[in-house]
């Protein structure tokens, strides 16, 4: 299982998923109508490292984090 976390304004509790890689996570999250609008504008981190591709293998206990558009300052 991997843990998926939703930061800031997404306002959704973490969920646990069966996923071998980020593509599996994408497919799973796309099923959630409420999340769909966020997926197009969120950056993704795996274990707190931002990633730029879906070709990322995941292992048991990995954390996937969704970061919606930011505005500090």
């Amino acid at each position: 299982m991997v843990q998926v976390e939703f930061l800031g304004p997404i306002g959704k509790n973490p969920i646990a998923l069966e996923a071998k890689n980020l593509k599996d996570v994408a497919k799973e999250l796309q099923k959630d109508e409420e999340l769909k609008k966020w997926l197009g504008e969120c950056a993704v981190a795996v274990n707190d490292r931002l990633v730029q591709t879906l070709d990322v293998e995941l292992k048991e206990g990995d954390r996937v984090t969704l970061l919606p558009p930011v505005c500090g300052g």
Partner: protein
Amino acid sequence: MLELYRGELDVDKIFFRWRKWGERKNYGAFITFVGTVRAENDIEALSFDVYEPILTQWFEEWQQKARAKGAYLMMAHSIGDVPVHTSSYMAAVFSPKRRVALELIDEFVEDFKANAPIWKYDVITGKRRYARERSHKIVGSGLLADT
């Protein structure tokens, strides 16, 4: 150094502490940027969520860039509510000479706005509303929609 505070920043105290530090280190140029919550759109405050693990990495990468130029960065940011006319953000660059400092403060503050993992909300009649229209997608956003 990166500093996070609950609520508004004590700007004068932070400025004093940073300045004294730079004085001891013999830096000749010290630039600070202070972001203050403007009274506009009937807001009472801005409010912020911060994701510290990735913010820390982002900051440390900038610190390395600065060190490579003989400079040093400081940053302070608020978490939670920051009332109108108080400050939520301070950034500073120290460097031996002015040119490096003037370039770094610009690049650092712009990249902060574009990529630092912080979320802003307007607070109106006590309610938080995500400032979506003023927010910026982090580089590489949209990955999970592409399959």
